[in-house]
């Protein structure tokens, strides 16, 4: 009690210094701890976007759940998409705790999604027209997600770091599930290989965009800088993209697939992958809700939200959202 009382007597500045000292010492910040407003805001932005992306990410894969070719594949993809929903739920709970002192709840998250204020990952705005896409999503999109999420396993915010531990463990299974689909197609008939190559061609640019822009002109890198100072994340967008290349480009090549970028190669001198930068204006268009499938996916979510309003009211007539 005495410690709490003395902490309350500190000035805002002293509290801030104390907070920075804690995260610099590698301590975890917990929901009821003092935290600066912009730390809370950064976390809400990051975690609600991550959570809602998991949920919107179920929609392109859902298209392939009933159509998965065999009983085994049906079971595997059902398990995978269920995991993604579970991740979404886990993350929204973390975000909701952060939002509570601001008098906000899940209804706000959903309404912000519908109004376009809350964005979701670019990859989930894309079409997934064939079974090859289901394979590429599980293998490479989940592979990219593992890379970008692993760098936050040591996040200064305790609940997020703990949620990510579980999420990353499951994502590894997803990537293996994806790799298994990919292998079957790659070793299959010419038609199956074509299915795969077409899907890779469709997804390549979206995969590069997944990590976000590299240069300051193209992005809200102030968020990146702040999140790094607050030890929410440990690496820049470009560092993550380079990791992705190192891990996956050789694997893609070894399957005999062609990357739709003739310039991509590893530059020994720089120790970096050189590649064709995607069009970042297009990226902005996509994440602001003007991607190839953005409207349809949001519409699907809105339709079901409206159709089920009576259920939510029946469960809890007093509250608006659950």
């Amino acid at each position, binding site marked *: 009690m005495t410690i709490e009382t003395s902490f309350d007597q500190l000035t805002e500045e002293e509290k801030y210094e104390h907070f920075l000292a804690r995260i610099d010492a590698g301590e975890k910040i917990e929901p009821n701890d003092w935290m600066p407003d912009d730390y809370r805001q950064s976390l809400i932005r990051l975690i609600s976007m991550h959570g809602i992306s998991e949920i919107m990410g179920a929609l392109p894969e*859902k298209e392939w759940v009933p*159509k998965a070719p065999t009983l085994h594949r049906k079971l595997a993809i059902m398990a995978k998409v269920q995991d993604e929903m579970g991740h979404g739920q886990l993350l929204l709970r973390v975000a909701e705790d952060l939002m509570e002192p601001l008098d906000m709840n899940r209804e706000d998250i959903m309404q912000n999604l519908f109004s376009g204020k809350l964005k979701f990952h670019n990859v989930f705005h894309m079409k997934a027209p064939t079974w090859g896409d289901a394979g590429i999503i599980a293998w490479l999109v989940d592979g990219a997600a593992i890379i970008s999420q692993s760098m936050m396993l040591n996040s200064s915010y305790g609940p997020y770091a703990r949620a990510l531990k579980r999420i990353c463990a499951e994502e590894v299974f997803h990537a293996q599930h994806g790799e298994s689909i990919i292998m*079957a197609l790659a070793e299959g008939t010419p038609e199956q290989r074509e299915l795969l190559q077409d899907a890779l061609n469709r997804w390549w640019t979206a995969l590069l965009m997944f990590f976000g822009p590299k240069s300051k002109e193209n992005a809200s890198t102030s968020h990146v800088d702040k999140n790094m100072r607050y030890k929410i994340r440990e690496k820049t967008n470009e560092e993550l993209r380079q990791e992705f290349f190192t891990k996956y480009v050789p694997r893609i090549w070894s399957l005999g697939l062609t990357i739709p970028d003739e310039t991509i190669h590893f530059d020994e001198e720089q120790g970096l992958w050189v590649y064709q930068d995607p069009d970042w204006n297009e990226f902005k268009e996509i994440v602001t809700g003007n991607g190839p499938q953005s409207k349809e996916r949001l519409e699907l979510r809105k339709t079901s939200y409206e159709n089920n309003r009576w259920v939510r009211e029946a469960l809890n007539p007093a509250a608006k959202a*659950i």
Partner: protein
Amino acid sequence: MAQDKALVELLYTLADDDFILAYRGSEWLGLAPHIEEDVAYSSINQDMMGHAAKYYHLLEELGEGDADELSHLRSPEKFRNAVLLEEKNGEGTYLEQPQYDWAFAVVRNYFYSIHKKFRMDSLRQSSYEPLSDTAKKVSIELQYHLMHWETWFKQLMTSTDEAKRRMTAAVERCWNEMGGVLSLGPMAEEMAEKGYIASEETMRTKWLDHMKKTFEQIGADFPGELGMTKGNGRQGEHTEDLTQALETLSEVYETNPKVAW
């Protein structure tokens, strides 16, 4: 062992019921009333698809053919599932403008799960050992499905006026087809005689008794006579909904069933 028609028919009944209802459930993915339900419902559907796969593999062992082909390539009239379980979740498709009815989902799954429980209780004693082994495994997961659907059913049946109205309509709709779910088809007697499963009458009575108690408990009117208005699926009678379902389920596989996927 020699082909036993009654056993084979029973296995198709069990397999197709779970397969089709799991499919209808999987169409709800991402569209459930809230995110927690999406997680729970998709887990149940995954279990049910797993149960179907077990039965298809038992059929494969009996020489009926490859489990994937049995589930994906038979023509609709070869399917033995009850008509209630194949019916669409509502207007629209799972990809466009799904006007899905949650009351129908709850009632259909609740009614079916109760029946499935009595089925498993009986099948655990089945004279066909591979089937009794399977029933033991299925029962463990089914317990959670039952708890889930019973909670939903009782909650919505006793909640707001709108919920009651929608649920009552769904009860009526399911009641009109439930006779088909409780049917074991033309070979029912032989199935019972050979000790594969209890008699149709026994299981029907158990289900009705359970429902009477449930309706009494929640103070709702008991609907009366069960119906089977759209045909008996156990005899291969089905609706256009099944044809469409099978086209979706086999869209990828049928492009080339001979290769590995």
